[in-house]
C-alpha cells in the first residue's frame, strides 16, 4: 500500500496522520463540509473509534474529558459553519483549563471563501483568540504537516486547544501521503530554560522558612510530576493546599494535604496563605477564585512560583522567585537542594482551623439530624462507596463546589471539572470522554438540575454506547449557585433562578438509562449501591435541600481568609 508515488485524497491523508499521532478515538458529528473526511474514516473503523455525539458542544467537552482522564490529546471532528461554532464553548474551556484537544472542522472550498457561501464562517479568525493555534488547511499537501504541528502544540508546553479548519478542496484533492513529525517549532519555547540561580534561591528560601505553604495546581498533573511533588513536600515537611484542578495530585488523606484553596476551599488553607512566610506555588495561576482580594493576598510571604508559562509569572501576584520550566524537572531540582525538615508544629497549627470548619460546616453538612438530604452527604456516600478510587466529573455550580469539597481521591488525574470557564453543561459529555478514555475506572458525574439540561441530549450518546457513567443529579430545583448569591448579596430576590423541571426519571427511562430517585436519608446508601452495582449507565437523582448553601465562603472582593461559616 505504501508504494512511493501512491496518491491518496487529502481526507485519507488526514485520517492516516491522525492514526500516526496515536489517535484511536474521535468525538464528532458529520455535515456537508466534512463529508469527504467521514467517507475516508469509514475505511478505518478498525483503527479509530468514532463516537457520534448529539451536539458538537458535547464533542468538544467529551474530547476534554478524554484528555483530562487519559493524559492524551482529545480529538473532535465537526462540519463547518454551525458545527464548528458549536464547539466554541469547549475550545474556550480547554484554553482556560490548559486541556489538550484538537478540533478539526470542515470548511467550504477555498474558491468560495469570502463569498458568504452556505455555512461559511471564518472559523480560524473566530477561534484564534481562544486557542493555542488555529490554522486553515487550504491544500492537501499541507495536511500531514498541519496535523503533526497541531498535536505537538496541543500537548506540549502549557497544553491547550488547537483548531484546524480544512477546506473541502484540501479534503478531496490528491496528494502523496508523507508522514510528518513535529517536535520543535522555532517560534515556540515549549520548555523555557530554568534559571539555576532561581532554583538555588528558592531552595534557600524554603530552607530558611519556618512556615512554608505550598499551592498545588493542575500543572503537576499535566507535567506528570505527582511523584516529584510527593518527594518535594515529604522531604521538606511542607503542608499544601490544592486548587480545584489540583485536588487529585496526591491522595486526599495524605497527612500534608490540607484540602482545597479558595472561595469555597478549606478554611485552614486560606488562613495559612495569609500567615505563611514562604508561599510556593506549583503549576497554578492565582485565579481570582483562589486569591480573593489581591490587595490582601499573602502580602507577608515571599512568593516562589514554579510554572512552565512565562506569561503567568507576576500576572496576578508579584513573584519574588520565579522558577520557569517543566515542574517535573524543577521540583526534582528543588527536592535535591532542600534539607529534610520536620515542620510538624507548623503543620499541626492547621488543625485548629480544620476543626473549626468541621464543627461549624462539615459536620452539619454530612451528618444532619433531620430535614432534606444535603448535597455533601450524597457526595460523601458515593465517594465512600467507590473506595475513593473513582474519577470525579462535575458540572458547574453548587454541585461542583460541593463535589470538590466532599469527594475524596486516592488516584491521580481524578478530577474533571470546568474551572476557568465555569461551563454549565460540561459534566455529562466530559464524563463520556472519561469513560471511553478509562474503561478501567468508575466515573462519577455530579451535575445540577440546571447544568444537566444544558447538554442533556448526550444521554443519547451514553445510551447508544452503554457508557457506564454514574450520573448523580443533585436536584435542588434551583440554579443553586446563583440563588445562593441572590440570597446573600441581593436580598433574597430570586430573580429567575427557580427551575420548573421535567420528570428526570421519565427522561432517563426514555433513554433506556437505569435510574432511581432518592429523597429519604435512610435510602441513600442503598440507592448508591444500586447505582454502582448496575452495569452500564445509571442516573441517581438525589432530591436535595432546595435552599442549601455552599459553605464556607469568601464573599467576592473580600480577603481570602475572611470566610463565612454560616449564613
Amino acid at each position, binding site marked *: 500500500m505504501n508504494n512511493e508515488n501512491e496518491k491518496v485524497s487529502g481526507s485519507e491523508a488526514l485520517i492516516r496522520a491522525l492514526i500516526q499521532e496515536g489517535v484511536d478515538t474521535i468525538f464528532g458529528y458529520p455535515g456537508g463540509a466534512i463529508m469527504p473526511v467521514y467517507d475516508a474514516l469509514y475505511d478505518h473503523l478498525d483503527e479509530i473509534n468514532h463516537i457520534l455525539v448529539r451536539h458538537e458542544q458535547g464533542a468538544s467537552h467529551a474530547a476534554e474529558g478524554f484528555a483530562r482522564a487519559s493524559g492524551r490529546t482529545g480529538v473532535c471532528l465537526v462540519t463547518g459553519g454551525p458545527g464548528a461554532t458549536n464547539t466554541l464553548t469547549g475550545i474556550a474551556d480547554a484554553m482556560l483549563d490548559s486541556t489538550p484537544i484538537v478540533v478539526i472542522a470542515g470548511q467550504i472550498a477555498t474558491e468560495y471563501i469570502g463569498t458568504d457561501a452556505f455555512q461559511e464562517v471564518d472559523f480560524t*479568525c473566530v477561534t*484564534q*483568540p481562544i486557542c493555542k*493555534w488555529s490554522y486553515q488547511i487550504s491544500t492537501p499537501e499541507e495536511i500531514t504537516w498541519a496535523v503533526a504541528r497541531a498535536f505537538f502544540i496541543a500537548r506540549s508546553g502549557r497544553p491547550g486547544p488547537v483548531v484546524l479548519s480544512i477546506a473541502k478542496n484540501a479534503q478531496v484533492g490528491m496528494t502523496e501521503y508523507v508522514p510528518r513529525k513535529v517536535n*520543535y517549532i*522555532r*517560534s515556540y519555547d515549549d520548555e523555557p530554560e530554568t534559571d539555576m540561580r532561581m532554583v538555588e534561591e528558592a531552595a534557600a528560601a524554603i530552607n530558611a522558612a519556618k512556615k512554608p505553604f505550598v499551592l498545588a495546581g493542575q500543572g503537576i498533573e499535566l507535567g506528570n510530576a505527582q511523584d516529584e511533588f510527593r518527594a518535594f513536600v515529604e522531604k521538606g515537611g511542607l503542608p499544601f493546599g490544592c486548587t480545584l484542578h489540583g485536588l487529585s495530585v496526591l491522595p486526599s488523606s495524605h497527612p500534608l494535604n490540607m484540602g482545597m484553596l479558595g472561595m469555597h476551599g478549606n478554611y485552614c488553607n486560606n488562613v495559612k496563605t495569609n500567615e505563611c512566610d514562604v508561599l510556593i506555588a506549583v503549576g497554578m495561576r492565582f485565579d481570582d477564585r483562589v486569591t480573593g482580594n489581591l490587595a490582601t493576598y499573602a502580602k507577608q510571604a515571599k512568593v516562589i512560583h514554579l510554572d512552565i508559562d512565562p506569561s503567568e509569572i507576576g*500576572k496576578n501576584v508579584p513573584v519574588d522567585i520565579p522558577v520557569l520550566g517543566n515542574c517535573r524537572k524543577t521540583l526534582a531540582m528543588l527536592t535535591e537542594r532542600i534539607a529534610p525538615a520536620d515542620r510538624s508544629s507548623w503543620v499541626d497549627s492547621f488543625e485548629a482551623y480544620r476543626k473549626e470548619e468541621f464543627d461549624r460546616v462539615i459536620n452539619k453538612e454530612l451528618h444532619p439530624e433531620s430535614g432534606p438530604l444535603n448535597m455533601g452527604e450524597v457526595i460523601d456516600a458515593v465517594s465512600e462507596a467507590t473506595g475513593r478510587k473513582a474519577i470525579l466529573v462535575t458540572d458547574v455550580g453548587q454541585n461542583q463546589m460541593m463535589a470538590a469539597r466532599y469527594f475524596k481521591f486516592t488516584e491521580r488525574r481524578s478530577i474533571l471539572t470546568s474551572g476557568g470557564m465555569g461551563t454549565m453543561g460540561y459534566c455529562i459529555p466530559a464524563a463520556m470522554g472519561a469513560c471511553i478514555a478509562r474503561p478501567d475506572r468508575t466515573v462519577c458525574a455530579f451535575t445540577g438540575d440546571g447544568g444537566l439540561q444544558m447538554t442533556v441530549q448526550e444521554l443519547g450518546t451514553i445510551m447508544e454506547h452503554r457508557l457506564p457513567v454514574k450520573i448523580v443529579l443533585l436536584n435542588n430545583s434551583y440554579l443553586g449557585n446563583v440563588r445562593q448569591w441572590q440570597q446573600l448579596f441581593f436580598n433574597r430576590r430570586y430573580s429567575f433562578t427557580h427551575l420548573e423541571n421535567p420528570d428526570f426519571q421519565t427522561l432517563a427511562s426514555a433513554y433506556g438509562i437505569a435510574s432511581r430517585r432518592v429523597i429519604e436519608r435512610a435510602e441513600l446508601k442503598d440507592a448508591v449501591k444500586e447505582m454502582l452495582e448496575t452495569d452500564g449507565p445509571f442516573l441517581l437523582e438525589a432530591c436535595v435541600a432546595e435552599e442549601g448553601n455552599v459553605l464556607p465562603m469568601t464573599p467576592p472582593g473580600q480577603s481570602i481568609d475572611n470566610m463565612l461559616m454560616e449564613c
Partner: protein
Amino acid sequence: MEETTLYTIIVHSENFSGILNQIAAVFTRLQVNIESLNVSASSMKNVHKFTISCKTTAKNIDKILKQINKKMDVINASCYTDDEIFQSEIAMFKISTDEFKNSEDTSRLLRGYNTHIVEVTPDFIVVELAGSSEAINSLYEELTRIGCAVKQFVRSGKVAVTASTLEKVSDLLSKRAERYKDRLQ
C-alpha cells in the same frame, strides 16, 4: 489614572497569514490604541517585523508583551522606551508646483527641513521628509500655518532599531535551536 508612557514594541514573527490580526487582538482585548504600526520583511528570510507604538501603563505593556509572545508564530516581542532606540519615520507631501514656485515661504520651509524632492510634474511636486515623528508633525503644522495647501500627506509609521548592536532575534533563534538540539536530530 495611572501614568502612561509611549512604548515602541518590536515583534518578529513567522511569515504566516493572520498574525497581524492576532497581534492587534491583544491590543483590542486590553483596550489600548495603537498609535502607529509598521509591518515589513526583516533582515532574516521568512521573518516579519512589526514596529508598533502605543501609549499605555507599565502594567499593561507587560501584559501586552507576554500575550504577544505567547502567540504560536511570534518569535519574539520586546518593548523599548524612546531612549533605548533610534527611530525614524518617512512622510510625503504633495504640493502644487505653482505654490512651490511662487511662495518663497513654502520653498524656504521645505529646504529648512531638509526635505528631498521625489518627483516634479507641471502640476505638483512630491517632497519627502525622513526624521522624527515630531519633525514631521512640525513641518506639516508650519506648512498649514503659512497657508500652503498640502494636496496629499502620508506618513509611514515609525520604524526603529535598538541601541544595542545585534538584531537580537537571530541570537535568540540560534540559542533556542542549540537548546533543543536533541530534538532536532
